[in-house]
Structures are given as structure tokens and as C-alpha cells.
């Protein structure tokens, strides 16, 4: 049963992997067993999910706003004018 016994380092790796793919039954059981006794790794998993939620629930406009150079904007307008003519 040794393979069931993971330490925090191993569990954190597996929890991280579970964000991106399905884990085998044995690994899932190993994680569950560990999380029953370790609130820190449980937090780690919840917090990774929370970060993902926060990132994905946002609108693109919530990115720190910047102003594009006037020159770059002017060339964008030129581009649009050109296309209109052609």
C-alpha cells in the first residue's frame, strides 16, 4: 500500500496535474487519503481553482489599461483608409 502514501510535495504535484488532466484511480485515492489529514494541501487545491476562476471570469478590459502610441494609432487608421479605397 506504499503507493497510497504521498507526502505534501507529491500531492501538490498531483493536485496541480489534476487541473490539467484526469488522474488514475490510485492517484486520486492517494490524494484523497492525504487531504483528509492535511488542510494545507487541501487549501493548495482550492486556491488553484480560485485563481483559475478569478482569471477566467474576468473581462478583457480589466487588464491594467494602457494607451497606445498616437503614431501606432495613426498607422492603424491609415490601414483602414487604404482598405476602404481598394
Amino acid at each position, binding site marked *: 500500500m506504499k503507493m497510497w502514501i*504521498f507526502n505534501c*510535495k507529491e500531492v501538490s504535484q498531483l493536485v496541480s496535474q489534476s487541473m490539467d488532466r484526469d488522474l488514475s484511480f490510485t492517484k486520486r485515492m492517494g490524494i484523497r487519503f492525504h487531504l483528509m489529514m492535511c488542510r494545507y494541501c487541501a487549501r493548495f487545491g482550492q*486556491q488553484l481553482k480560485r485563481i483559475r476562476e478569478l482569471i477566467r471570469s474576468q473581462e478583457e478590459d*480589466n487588464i491594467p489599461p494602457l494607451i497606445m502610441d498616437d503614431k501606432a494609432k495613426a498607422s492603424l487608421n491609415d490601414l483602414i483608409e487604404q482598405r476602404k479605397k481598394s
Partner: protein
Amino acid sequence: MASLITNNSQLHPDAWVDNYADSLFSYAFFRVQDRGLAEELVQETFVAALTAKERFKGDSSEKTWFFAILKNKIIDQFRQKYREKQQSLEVTPENINGDFFNEQGEWLVKPGKWRENPQQSFEQREFFAVLQQCLTELSAKQNDAFKLREFDDLGSKEICKVLGISSTNYWVLLHRARLVIRKCLEQNWFGNSVAGDTLYENVDI
């Protein structure tokens, strides 16, 4: 004055620069961290939008459509970047989480308890400023891998292809990125953490 609301499939290129250039540029910069490159990406987005304008069906808003184009351009840019320097950036797995765990595989600094944050948009904007700061703690490749996964929701196989890395390398990169980002957000955003309370500290696992 061109209307912003596109209930029909009318697009208004004359208003595009005023309406979208800055927000597209801000997003592009957030993703690539380079003003010149961000400008190029916005330009490419406009070119693609002008070319594809007839095919715009009005299913989504004009803005959503622009961001979808930009995000594709960003991923293309990563593909190109990593095709050019495929070999030079391999990570060394040795020090992967050395500064997070001790020899026994226990947390050196235990994840703390996070305070709940109301998700109001003004707060969200601050969240992204903090996240941007945290992202600077990652290597360029960790940064790109993390963003492709969390922002673009690309799958791990696809990200391996884009970055030209093995899946082993991918798990190392992503896990490392998550450890760093989690810790940084705990310190700078979720605050008031109760780091490592003692109750379970001596449980032998």
C-alpha cells in the same frame, strides 16, 4: 457617429481605432510584455478584421470578435517564437520545488487561509495589476505556459506543441508556475492569511 451596438452584422471600421485600439493594446501588452510586439499584434488583428469583415455574422459583439482574433494572434506569436529557439530554453527539473518543500516533502511555508474577496470589477482590475506583478517572478517560459493554460484555456497537449516541450517538462513548468503565483497572490492579494496554523502540524502522513 457610428453606433457601437451591432445588432445587425454591420461593422464600423471608422470607429475601430477609437473604440478598441487601447484595450486591445493593453491586453496584448499584458500577454507579451513588450510594447513593440503588442503594437504589431494589434495591427495584425486589425488587418485580419478588415479581411474577415464580410464574414462577421454579428453572433458576438464586435469587441468579443476583436479579442478572439487578437488571442489567436497571440498564440500564433508564441508558436513562432518557440519554433525559432526551441532548444535553448529547456528548464532544468532539479530545482523545481526546492524552495517550497523540505527534504521530507513537507511545505516550508504552509498555504494560509485566504480571505474572501467580493468580485467587483474595480477590485478585479486591481487583481490583474497584482497578478501581473506576480507573473514577473516566473521565467519567460513558465509565464507563457501559465497564461496559455489559464487565460486561453488551451489543453496541455496543445501547449506542449506551441512551446515545443515534452509533457514531463510541461508538468514541471506549470506546477512551478502555480506554486510561485499562489504564494505571491497570498502575500499580495488574499492577505490576512493565517499561515500554517498549528493544529495538524505534527500529523505524520
